[in-house]
């Protein structure tokens, strides 16, 4: 491989990118808009879930319980109903996602047997929300139950610690506030880089065939690898710019805590960029039409990256067959790495497995692309 020729190809590509408004838009505008849209648009946190209350007893205790719901940031009481029918209508209408019912013998049972139950009616059409709402409701009720116990013990003159030697305290590691944004945004960076990277390079070879400049180029002594590396280099630099921008936006704008090292971030991001750019390049080599190459690049990167990389939908929640499929999904490894770097502050040594997968992928794609590029017209 001759460095001079490689440099010539790279310089030419830089000039062409600079003078092509479409390339620049994809490279600069697209990541910015995607980060904004998805960063703000996708939010799995639930706050202020609208509920209605049905107090069948109307006692001091039942009102206390509902005060706990009122105080919780996760719920917002929108309506107090008087019949089950009203509650069902409200849920059907969609004005509330759940209803809390206190039975008419609530305080009686509490004072007598020491236990009582509270009914929660949930809108099951949104499975996710229903589950989460159930969890929150249980927590609120649990907190009320705690308060009652403490008050009862107080009256008996006993301290809490003597009665309850064991307490379960849950602590969330790595994403203590359970802010879903912290969980989504790093993965979003991976998806954006996969999309943009492949789009950028998917046109480069196809365009030259379509314009007729490739016919002249292949009649010179330039080699397939010189063309490939010469063309990829400028896009790698662009990729760094994009990655730096997206990651900075994640850490600074969306305030996702970053606990890893910049070195590890740089290394792994470069590896991932090299991979997605090569994928786009391979597509460009195989499909000699610009329109075709660009569409295939979109299909091959966007949907798989969004659905199968663990970006939003956890891989271990998927059916086993699909889980096995995700091993093929290259973005998955970078999603793992980047979440680990941001939230866990992981070391390179802890990420060797996903890094290895990325390396294997990159080498395979680059080798394929080099071989697939033929210096022939037909």
């Amino acid at each position, binding site marked *: 491989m001759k460095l*001079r020729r490689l440099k*010539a190809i790279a310089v030419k590509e830089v000039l062409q990118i600079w003078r092509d408004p479409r390339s620049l838009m994809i490279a600069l505008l697209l990541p910015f808009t995607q980060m904004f849209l998805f960063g703000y648009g996708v939010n799995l946190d639930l706050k202020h879930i609208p509920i209605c209350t049905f107090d069948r007893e109307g006692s001091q205790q039942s009102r206390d319980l509902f005060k706990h719901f009122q105080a919780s940031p996760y719920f917002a009481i929108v309506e107090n109903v008087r019949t089950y029918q009203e509650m069902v209508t409200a849920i059907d209408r969609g004005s509330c996602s759940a209803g809390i019912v206190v039975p008419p013998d609530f305080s009686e049972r509490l004072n007598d047997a020491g236990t009582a139950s509270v009914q929660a009616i949930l809108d099951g059409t949104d499975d996710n929300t229903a589950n989460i709402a159930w969890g929150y409701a249980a927590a609120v009720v649990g907190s009320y139950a705690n308060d009652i116990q403490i008050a009862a013990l107080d009256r008996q003159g006993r301290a809490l610690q003597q009665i309850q030697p064991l307490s379960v305290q849950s602590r969330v590691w790595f994403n203590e506030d359970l802010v879903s944004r912290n969980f989504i945004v790093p993965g979003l960076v991976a998806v954006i880089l996969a999309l943009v990277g492949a789009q950028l390079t998917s046109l480069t070879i196809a365009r030259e065939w379509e314009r007729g400049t490739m016919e002249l180029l292949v009649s010179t002594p*330039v080699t397939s690898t010189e063309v490939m590396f010469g063309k990829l280099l400028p896009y790698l630099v662009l990729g760094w710019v994009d990655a730096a921008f997206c990651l900075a936006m994640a850490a600074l704008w969306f305030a996702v805590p970053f606990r890893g090292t910049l070195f590890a971030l740089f290394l792994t991001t470069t590896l991932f960029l090299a991979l997605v750019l090569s994928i786009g390049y391979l597509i460009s080599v195989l499909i000699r039409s610009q329109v075709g190459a660009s569409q295939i690049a979109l299909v091959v990167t966007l949907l798989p990256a969004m659905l199968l990389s663990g970006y939003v939908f956890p891989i271990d929640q998927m059916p086993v067959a699909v889980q096995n499929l995700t091993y093929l999904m290259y973005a998955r490894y970078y999603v793992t790495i980047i979440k680990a770097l941001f939230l866990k502050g992981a070391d390179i040594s802890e990420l060797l497995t996903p890094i290895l997968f990325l390396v294997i992928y990159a080498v395979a794609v680059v080798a394929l692309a080099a071989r697939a590029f033929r210096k022939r017209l037909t």
Partner: protein
Amino acid sequence: MNEPRRPIVEANGLTKRFDTVAAVDGLSFTVDRGEIFGLVGPDGAGKTTTMRMLAGVMAPDDGSIIIDGIDVVSDPEEGRQHISYMPQRFGLYEDLTVDENIRFYADLFEIPARARDQRAARLLAASGMTAFRSRLAGQLSGGMKQKLGLTCALVHTPRILLLDEPTTGVDPVSRRDFWRILYGLREDGVTILITTAYLDEAERCNRLALLHGGRVLYCDTPAALKQHMPGAIVAIASSAGREARAAIATLEGVSHALLVGDGVHAVVDDAGLRIPALRNALQRANVPFADIAVSEPSIEDVFVALLENEGDSQ
């Protein structure tokens, strides 16, 4: 010029099929060192396909190509070191300037920077393009684009040039400049293989091969080609062309009568023998004519006559 022939390009039995159609069908010819050789024929004759095979950007289905002793079919990369190819379609980068294009191609051939700059300056001056160095190639006129293409092809001082229809649609002044450059290269010993659909451009070559249906109809110097023409052309200058043609078309020894703008061109077997008869026929039919004389056949006349001998016509 009876120097011994030293072939530098040898094509033998070249064949290339696209689907079921044979674009090139058993094509053979040789090009001698230092000559300008023309592959001449109408569109669809197989010129571009042949050039692409010579340049190594298309593999033949059959046949061999030896360029300067190298078997281009089995070792196209080696062949590429020795040739310079200018495709029919403008192959340079429209979004790069004249200078950037030249620099790019010089770098591909690893020309040292100083030599590259000197040579580029000289070539641009020779084609009158020095003032356009910073202009984007896409903004050049057709003739300038072709001259730029030639400049890039020449920047690495190739010994063998392959030019595919470089002057099609180009204005006559640029065409003349182009040929002046080619003749200068010939003086320097460069071998030039050029294709053209302009049959009259064929006369500018040292030797030419007439192509038809993917095969070589005839291969020789333009002068020899014209002598090979069966019969002779008699030009009748007349304002009543159709009547003149009607008067002489069926005469003995007249195989064709072609209507042209200012009269009739008759293809006869023997001019000296037939001219008196033609004159008589015209006078008898009262057709006014200004002149009747032997005319040198054009390459097209020869082409058509040869085609008819082959029995091919649409």
